[in-house]
C-alpha cells in the first residue's frame, strides 16, 4: 500500500452505486442507520456470514451523518488492550479494504503524529507507545528533531508557548476518503441484495415481551428477526423509543477545510494541548478538527469561537498556514460515553444489538466494528473484540477509560 501523492486528483466513482428499493415488509436483520457502521455491518453480514435478507434504514441520505462529516483519521494506537484490539482489527481490515470493496477508497498510510507539549503529555505518550508495542501495534516515540523530519512545517522551535517536546508516531495510520468508503460498503451490500432504504426514519418499535417484532418507519412497519442500532449521535432517540437507558450524550463536533494547496503536510498531526488535528487530503485541502462543543446538541453545527480557537492553534503549530483560507465549516453529532469508549452488544431486548458511543473514533473503527458486529449478529454472541464494551460495565465499574490516555482523542 503506497501512500498516494497529495494533489493527485480523485478517482472516478463507478457508474453504478445502489438501487433505491421500496422496503420489504420483513427482513432477517434490520440495521437502523445507514452510516459507515450500518453499511459496513451489512457488507460483512453478506460477505462473511451469507446473511443478505437485510435492510439498512436511513432517515436521510446514505452516509450523510458523521460519515460525511469526520476528518477521516485512521489509527489504532489506543492505550488500553480492549481499545487497541478493536481499532487494530479495523486497521488491518483497512489495509485490505480497497481490494475487498473494489472501490478506490484512497486509504493513505501516511502516519499519525500525536504531539506532546508538556511533561505529562510525554509520560502519557510513552505509556501508550510502550503499550502499543507490547500489543503488536506499530508505534514509536519521536524526539522533536525527528518530528520535524516527518513533518517539516510543524513549529518545533522551543520559544513558542507550548513547545513540542516530542510525539508518538504510528506509521501505519493515515486517512481515507470518507464518501468513497461508505459508498464502497453500500455498493457491495447492494450487490449482495441488501436493501438500502433512504428517507426512511424510524418512528417507533413494536415489541412483544423481550423481543422487538417490528420497526415502525416513515415508510411503513418492517418486521425484523434481529435489529441492530447503528445510529451514532441519534442513538438516544432510538433507545428512548425502546425504553432502554444508555449513558450516551450527543455533542456537536466541528471540522473545516481550506482551499486546495500544494503539498505541505505529508502526515497527520494531532495535538491535544494546543488542540488541533490536521491532515492534507488527497486533493490538497487542509482538513482540520478540534474539540467538541460542550453542550448536548443535535444541530450538526457548533459555535464559531471553537473554530477561531482552532485556527489560533493551527497557526501556532504551523506558522506557514497563516494565509491558508478557511473555505467551509460544518458540524457532526458525536455520541460520547462516560469512559470515552464505545458501547456495543446486547440490550434488554433479546434481538436488539446496540452499537454506539464511538465518540470521535467512529470512522477509524468502521470496518472493524462492521465485521465484529456482523459476527455478533450472525452468532448471537458478542465477538471477543466487542465483548469488553458492554453496557453492563457502567454497573460493575469495569470501565475502559480512554480519558486517562487523553493525550489522544479523535
Amino acid at each position: 500500500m503506497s501512500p498516494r501523492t497529495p494533489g493527485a486528483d480523485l478517482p472516478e466513482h463507478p457508474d453504478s452505486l445502489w438501487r433505491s428499493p421500496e422496503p420489504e415488509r420483513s427482513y432477517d436483520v434490520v440495521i437502523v442507520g445507514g452510516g459507515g457502521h450500518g453499511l459496513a455491518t451489512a457488507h460483512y453480514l453478506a460477505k462473511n456470514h451469507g446473511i443478505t435478507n437485510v435492510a439498512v434504514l436511513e432517515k436521510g441520505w446514505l452516509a450523510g451523518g458523521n460519515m460525511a462529516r469526520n476528518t477521516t483519521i485512521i489509527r489504532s494506537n489506543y492505550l488500553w488492550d480492549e481499545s487497541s484490539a478493536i481499532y487494530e482489527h479495523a486497521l488491518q481490515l483497512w489495509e485490505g479494504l480497497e481490494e475487498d470493496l473494489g472501490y478506490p477508497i484512497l486509504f493513505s498510510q501516511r502516519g499519525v503524529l500525536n504531539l506532546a507539549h508538556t511533561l505529562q503529555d510525554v509520560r502519557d505518550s510513552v505509556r501508550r507507545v510502550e503499550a502499543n508495542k507490547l500489543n503488536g501495534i506499530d508505534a514509536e516515540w519521536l524526539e522533536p528533531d525527528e518530528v520535524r523530519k516527518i513533518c517539516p512545517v510543524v513549529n518545533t522551535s522551543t520559544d513558542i508557548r507550548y513547545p513540542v517536546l516530542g510525539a508518538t508516531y504510528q506509521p501505519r495510520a493515515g486517512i481515507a476518503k470518507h464518501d468513497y468508503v461508505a459508498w464502497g460498503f453500500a455498493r457491495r451490500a447492494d450487490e449482495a441484495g441488501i436493501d438500502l432504504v433512504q428517507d426512511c426514519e424510524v418512528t417507533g418499535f413494536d415489541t412483544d415481551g423481550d423481543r422487538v417484532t417490528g420497526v415502525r418507519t416513515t415508510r411503513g412497519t418492517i418486521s425484523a428477526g434481529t435489529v441492530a442500532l447503528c445510529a451514532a449521535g441519534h442513538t438516544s432517540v432510538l433507545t428512548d423509543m425502546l425504553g432502554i437507558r444508555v449513558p450516551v450524550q450527543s455533542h456537536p463536533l466541528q471540522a473545516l477545510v481550506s482551499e486546495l494547496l500544494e503539498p505541505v503536510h505529508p502526515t497527520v498531526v494531532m495535538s491535544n494541548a494546543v488542540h488541533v488535528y490536521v491532515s492534507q487530503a488527497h486533493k490538497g485541502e487542509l482538513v482540520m478538527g478540534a474539540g467538541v462543543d460542550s453542550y448536548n446538541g443535535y444541530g450538526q453545527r457548533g459555535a464559531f469561537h471553537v473554530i477561531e480557537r482552532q485556527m489560533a492553534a493551527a497557526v501556532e503549530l504551523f506558522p506557514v498556514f497563516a494565509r491558508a483560507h478557511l473555505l467551509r465549516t460544518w458540524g457532526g453529532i458525536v455520541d460520547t460515553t462516560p469512559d470515552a469508549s464505545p458501547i456495543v452488544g446486547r440490550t434488554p431486548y433479546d434481538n436488539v444489538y446496540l452499537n454506539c458511543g464511538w465518540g470521535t473514533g467512529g470512522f477509524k473503527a468502521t470496518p472493524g466494528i462492521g465485521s465484529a458486529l456482523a459476527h455478533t449478529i450472525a452468532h448471537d454472541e458478542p465477538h471477543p473484540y466487542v465483548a469488553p464494551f458492554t453496557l453492563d460495565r457502567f454497573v460493575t465499574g469495569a470501565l475502559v477509560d480512554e480519558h486517562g490516555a487523553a493525550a489522544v482523542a479523535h
Partner: protein
Amino acid sequence: MTSTHRAPEGGRIDRATTVEFTFDGQTLTGHPGDTLASALLASGRHRVATSTKLGRPRGIAAAWAEDPGGLVQIEEPFPEPMLLATTVELHDGLAAHGLPGQGRLADVPDSARYDAVHHHADVLVVGAGPAGLAAALTAARAGARVALVDEQSEAGGSLLSGTDRLDGVPALRWVAAAVAELAGHPEVLHLQRTTAFGSYDDGFVLALERRTDHLGAAAPKHVSRQRVWRIRARSIVVATGAHERPVVFADNDRPGIMLAGAARTFLHRYGVLPGRQAVVFTTNDSAYDAALDLHRAGVRVQAVVDARPEGSPRRREECEHAGIRVLSGAVVTGTQGVERVTHALVAPFADGEVGAGSAIACDLLLVSGGWNPAVHLFSQTRGRLRYDEALGAFLPGEQLDGLAVTGSAAGVFDLAGCLADGQRVAGAALGALAIPPAGEDRLPTAPEPVVPAAPLVLWRVPDTSGAEGSTSFVDLQRDATVADIARAVGAGLRSIEHVKRYTTIGTAHDQGKTSGVLTSGITAELLGIPVQDTGTTTFRPPYTPVAFAALAGRDRGRLFDPERVTALHEWHVAAGAVFEDVGQWKRPRYYPQPGEDMEAAVLRECAAARTGVGVLDGSTLGKIDVQGPDAAVLLDLLYTNLMSSLKVGSVRYGVMCGVDGMVIDDGTVLRLAEDRFLVLTTTGGAAKILDWMEEWAQTEWPELRVHCTSVTEQWVTLPVVGPRSRDVVGTVFPQVDVSTEAFPFMTWRDTTLDGVPVRLARISFSGELAFEVYVNPWYAVAVWQRLLEAGRSYGITPYGTETMHVLRAEKGYPIIGQDTDGTVTPHDLGMAWAVSKKKPDFIGKRSFARPANSDPLRKQLVGLLPVDRQTVLPEGSQIVEFLADGRLPPPPVPMLGHVTSSYRSAELARPFALALVKGGRSRIGETVHVPVNGTLVPVEVTGPVLVDPEGARRDG
C-alpha cells in the same frame, strides 16, 4: 503591454495615477480603483488560469466573489494562495499568477497583524447597495446604533455597475450623499471592504474587514491587515444582492465568456471594455442592459440571443433602435476558440429542441440565466428557502426573528422597489426594537420601474456537440459537467448531497455560488422531479474564504495562551531557572548552575533539601477559603476523610474523589477557625476543585451555610525544607517558637514580619522537617529574600518542581494526574487510611462498593527498584511479568501496569520509580520486567515509601 481595452472615459478608477503590477511574470499597468481582474481585462487579457483537472484555459467570468474562473496566487507583497482576481484590489508592486488548482503557502511566517473587534448594534445592515443604504439611512435617522458593512471598496452595490439615476441625477451622487450623511451620525459604523461571512445565533454576525491589502507595500505594519468584526446586532438587515447565474452549454468555459452583468460592472466601474465583438445570450431582460451599454461604449454587439420564444418585445425594440440584432427563440449551443472564445454557435430553440445553428464571431460571450438572490446569511441562520418557479431561484421562504432580507437578495430587482423595501424593512426593525422612526426619512425618486418580460428558467442548453454534456461545465472550478451529473444520477443517486459528492460540484473555492442552483435544476430535470424537492445543499459559513490568521487574530505567539506567573517570577528568571509548563503556569523546574545539566542540578537540589535546607516557590498550589457555619459539613461530604474533627490550628491531608470513586485531587486542609478552613489543591486542580465545591454547594446542598472563595493568588506559599529549615524559619520569624513541642507537625501558627501577617505551617511534601510560609504576594520578594539571607550559612538552595517530585516520590507521595489517571481509587494508592469509615456518606463512597473495586488485580501504587541500580526507567514504561529467558514473547504481551514516576535518587544512590501494578501490593518483593529500548530491565517491586519509611525525619 498597454491598456488596449480601457474605455476612453468613465469608470471609478484614478486615471491620473498609474500602478505597475506583474502577472504571470509580465509587467502590466493599471490604475488605483482597479481590481487585478479589471486591470488584466484592460490589458486585453481574459485568460487567467488553467483548470485543475482538464487543463482547459479559464478566464474571468464574473466581476466579484461569484467568479468561478479567475483564481490567482499572490506572490508579492506576500504569498497568499488562491484569491479571485476579481476581488484583489490593484496596487503598485502586486505580483500574481494564475492558478492551476492548488495554491501555495509562503514558506516563511506571516508577520502581518490580524485582530478582532466586538461591536454592538441595534441594526446591522449587510450590503451598501440601494436597499442596504436605504435601510441604513432609515435606521440611522432614527438614532439607532447602526452598523453598515459592505464587501466592496466603496458603497453603491449594483449602482456602481450601471447608469441608474435618482432624482434625475446619477444615482452615485445619492450614494455619496448617503455615505456622507451616515458619517455624520455618531452612532453609525460604516465599513467598506468588509464581508459578512457568517451569521449565527442571536444576531451574531462575523465580518472580515480587509484593512490594508489595497495599500500594498505602503500598508502600515502596526495596523492589522485584516480584522474580524464580531457584530452582535439586535436586528439584521440582509441586503446582499443577487448573483447572476449562467446557462450551461457546450464549451461554456472558455476565456471571454462572462456573465452579462459582470461586463457592465467592468465597463461602468472600471472603464474596461471586456471585448470588441460581443454576443449576448440571455433568458431574461437584464442582459439587454449589458448589450446596450457595451454598444454605446463602442463594442460591436453581434447579436442578443434570447432563449425565450418571444424574447422581450420592448428590449428588442431598444436593441433594434441601436442596430443590435436580436435572435429570439435561440440559444448558444457551443463555442469555438482555445485561449479565448472566437465564435458562439447559435441555434434556434423551441420546445426544448435545438435546431441547426451557425457560428457568430465574437471575442466576448455574455451570458445571463437569471439571478440567484444571495441568501447565504439567511440560510446560515437556518432560514428555510423556497424555490420560486418564475425566477428559477431560491428565495427566503420564511420570516426570521431579528433578520430580514431586502432588495434583490429578497427577489426585488428594480431600483425603486429596492429603495422602498430597504426603508420598509429597516422601519419594521426599528418598530420591533421600539425605536421611534425619524420624522423625516426621505428617499430619492427612482424612475418608474418597467415590468420586464417574464424570464425563462433554462439551466442548460441541450448538447448538440456530440460531447454529451462532457464539456458543458456546471462547476468550472471543479471541472464538473452536465455529464458528471448525469453519471451520478445514472449511478442511482437521488439526493443532491450525493450528487454534490459524486461530482464534487460546489466544493471548490467559490463553494458553488454559480453552480449550486444549476446543479439543483439539472439534477431535478434528470430525475424528473420538481426543483423544490431537490433543494440545495447546505449553505455553510464562511460566505467567502477567510485566512486562518485572520481568525487566529491576536491569539498568536505570546498571546496564544496566557502565561500565569507567581510573584517571584522575575527572581526565578534572574536566577536562571528552567521553567516547566503546568497548565498555564510557568513553574521553575530546576535552577542549573554553570555547567550543570538537569540531572546534576536536581541531585544537588535534592541533597540540599535532605541534608541542609531548600526552598521552593509553591505559590501555584490552589487555595480555597471555605467559610461559614457549615464549612466542615461541606468538607466532610467532599473529602474521603473526616475534616470536621480537625482542630483549629491543625492541618490534615485529604483526598477527594469523583462520584465514580476515582481520585480527583488531594492536598492539605488548614482549619483557621471553627467556621473557616483553608483548602489546598494541586496546581492543576485549583480551578476544577473550586468549581467542584461550588457545584455541590449551590446545586445540591444550597441549605448549607458555606461559601468558597479562591485565594490561590492571595497567598504565596514557600516551603522551607530540610533539617536546617527550623533554623532558617526561626531566624526570620523570631516571634514563633519553632520547636517540635511548641509547633508540632501538621499544625499552623500565625505571626507577623515587620507588621505584615504571615502564616507558618508544619507541612512536609518531602518527609523532611519543613515549614510552609504563607504571605500576601505583595511581600513575596521581601520574604523570599529574608529566607535566603537567613539560610545562606546553611547553604539554602532554591529548588524547582523536578526536585520537589523526586523528594515526594522517595516518600511515595503520589501526584494526582501523574501517578493517577482517573481510574485510581484512594485504596489503589494505599490510602485506605484516608477513607473515613465513620462518615455515613461522602462523594465517591458508594462507588467503592462496586464489583470492579474488589478485583484483586486492580492496579495499586508500588515502588520499583531497577535491579541493575543504574537504569532510570522512562516514565510511562510498561511492566510485564519476569521473563526468565530475558525475551519478550510475541504480542500481545500481557501488561501488569506502568511506570508513573521515575527518578535518580541522591538519597538512595540509585534510580527508583513509582508504578501502578496489577495486584501490586501482593507482588512486593517480586521481580518483574520493564522493556526499555528493546531490552528487559529487571526491577524489584517494593512498597512506595523508599526514604525514611518510619517518618523519623519530619520533626528534624
